[in-house]
């Protein structure tokens, strides 16, 4: 009798899982992926621009000012990933989150994880072209800055979607 009761208590005490992971683990996995995706994308994007910008600056160091915002702009996706990762523990009580809800949080993090990763890399490529514009015609630096910003639209949308899904799930 004692053995049966002990087994029942043990059964109840174990956290529920979904596909082998608890809600806490799913949520943290989502948060981690969001930042990993955005961070890696931004690192690659900024590196791509740096290669070209360094070459331009060797020839004309005066162009550092107009080039700096173009170099920095692929970095925002990493920030979006960081924000998503931070919002997970802020908005959800991870100690009590169910496995199912944890999995939903994981899914909600995926737009940022993937879209920020890819868009940062392509924004870096777009910034490379923008650097070319500035190298040739510094007076068009304003227009050159806008072109890579168009790519970031989708990263912003992914962040908006993720935040919206978080708030709906709360």
């Amino acid at each position: 009798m004692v053995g049966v009761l002990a087994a029942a208590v043990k059964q109840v005490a174990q956290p529920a899982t979904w596909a082998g992971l608890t809600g806490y683990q799913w949520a943290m996995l989502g948060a981690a992926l969001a930042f990993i995706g955005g961070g890696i994308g931004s690192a690659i994007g900024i590196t791509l621009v740096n290669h070209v910008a360094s070459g331009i600056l060797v020839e004309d160091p005066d162009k550092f000012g107009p080039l700096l915002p173009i170099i920095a702009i692929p970095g925002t996706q990493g920030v979006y990933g960081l924000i998503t990762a931070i919002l997970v523990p802020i908005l959800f009580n991870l100690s009590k989150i169910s496995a199912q809800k944890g999995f939903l949080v994981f899914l909600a993090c995926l737009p940022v994880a993937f879209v920020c990763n890819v868009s940062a890399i392509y924004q870096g490529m777009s910034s490379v072209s923008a650097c070319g514009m500035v190298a040739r015609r510094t007076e068009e630096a304003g227009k050159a800055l806008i072109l890579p910003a168009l790519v970031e639209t989708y990263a912003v949308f992914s962040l908006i979607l993720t935040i919206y899904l978080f708030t709906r799930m709360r």
Partner: protein
Amino acid sequence: MAVEPVKKVTVVAHQELQDRVVDSLVRMGTVHVDRVVEDDLLAPKELTEDEAGAVRDCSFGVTKVEFLLGFLREHASERPGFFKTMIKKKYPMTIDEFLAAAERVDLPRIYAECSELKRWLISIMDRNSIFEQERDELQNWVGLEMPLNEVKGGSTFGLMAVRVSKSEFGAFISELESEVPESAVDFVGERGGWANCLLVYHSEAEESIAAVLSRHRYYAVTLPDIPDEPEDRLEQLASELTGLERQRLRVLDDIENYMVHVPALEVLKEFLIDRGQKIDVLTSFGVTDATMAVEGWVTENGLPKTLEELDEVSEYIAVEISEPEEGDNPPVSLDNPKWAKPFEVLTKLFGSPNRREYDPTWIVAISFMVFFGFCMGDVGYGFVLVPTFLLMRKYLPLGHKAKDLLTVLAYSSAFAILIGVFAGSWFGIKTDSLPSSLRSVAFMDGLSKTTLAMGITIGIGLVHMLIGVGIEFRDTWKSGSRTDALIDQGLIFLLFVGGGIAAVLAAVKLVPVSVPLLVAGAAILGMLLLLGRSAQSIGGKVVNGIYETYGTVVGFVSDAISYVRLFALGLATFIIAMVINTMAGLVRGIAPVIGILAMLIVLVVGHTFNIAINLLGAFVHPLRLEFVEFFGKFYDDGGREFKPLGVESKIVMIEEKEGA
């Protein structure tokens, strides 16, 4: 708040007055010079030999000045700091001072003297390099106790200096002893993994020697042909190198004396470039046998000064003023109120409006400030940024465009304070921790009122775009295409404004729910029937109508959704600030005093970092909304910027004379 009207101006004078006319135009800075159209009377001016020579002289002068500036900066004892490389020094001066720049610097003398210094320096460095190479080699032969010029063979024997890999030296010796007994090796010393030795051998054994050497890693060394032993020679070299170093330092001191000319050289370079351009501008003039003609544009505000100044040049100058004609493409000068004037830098980033369309600068000014406020959206950050930008504007040596940009940022940061109050963002302090008075006005808190905050940004976006549609309606109506205005823009207003108002009235139960549906339905039906009107066939009109309706409605809605980024960026700023505060709170508990110090450091560094990374987004994304979503509704640009003939320089700031 419009494109400033301009007048066409034609100045005709005797060719002898050419230089004085150009000088007067440059000093006035009121006339935008255009190329004269060739006709029966006027031919385009070609530069005379003297003028072409002057252009070449200017170009050579610029090359010389660039050489001097590069040479002097390369050898300057003090390197400029990071901020000095970012912000170039500016030279405020009157136009007379600028035009006298060539007289302040004796360029030929300084160029000749610095060229000589450079030749001398190169000669010193070359000799230094040779002596150092010789010294490096001789350090391998310190143990050699014979004059260097005696290390050579004779008719019956060979003597060579050889360097063999230390690891193979033993094997090398053994092979020589066994294969070439008519040889001997004098080991001199070892350095850097190589054994240096003298190899003496019978001249008939030369081939055998070569065969043994080829089996090992070795160098045949050519020693200097001098009658000194290596140690003595090394002493001489040390003395020579010391002497060369003294000479080098003397040359650097001499170069340092020329650094005082750098500011004057920088201004001279600008002067020479400007002068070359001003001579080139002569090719825009028209000429007859004896006269010259200048055609250009002047604003209405600049006209009295222009006429007065030209009158002072000579009474034998004729000036004709006329209105722009139909085929003309006059340059565009923007005329905005003082508070909106700095924002012209944003409009011009996209492109000047053409002269027939509306100048949206004042609308861009207000909307940019609001959007920036949303993106930055923190009271504390706003209070930090406003004085920062104002102080930068006042004390940093910057050009007009940079100062305008700082003014724009300062004004916009004030809106960050306002939006921060409504968003409940005070240096990232959690809204729950704020006093109730501040919490009560935080109706746009991004974390707790997400849907409302997003809805507000979409609503602002809709209003912004509808203003753009309204401008297009005005431009289309003014151009005479009133039907097009009523259809293309009027139906959009009917759908979004009419439908929106009807929806609000239906929500408060003043009208039935069917009213907004009817209004929207009427608008969409109108679009389906009329937007495809340009097609020839009935089928084409229907298909085009569906396509245009879909594009208009869906495009408008998706553009409105794009404004949600303002909410996202503002929330990003707040969340990062909140995390910084959390981290600062964690380090505070380390130790009583050190903890507080660490907390302050984390707060200052962290919030500065947050401001920096979000400032870029707060500038770029509102600008993107202006250029894509707003300008896309009406803006054609294509205007030529009004650029009066004057001094163009990035580092020389022309000031008015006192009393002028």
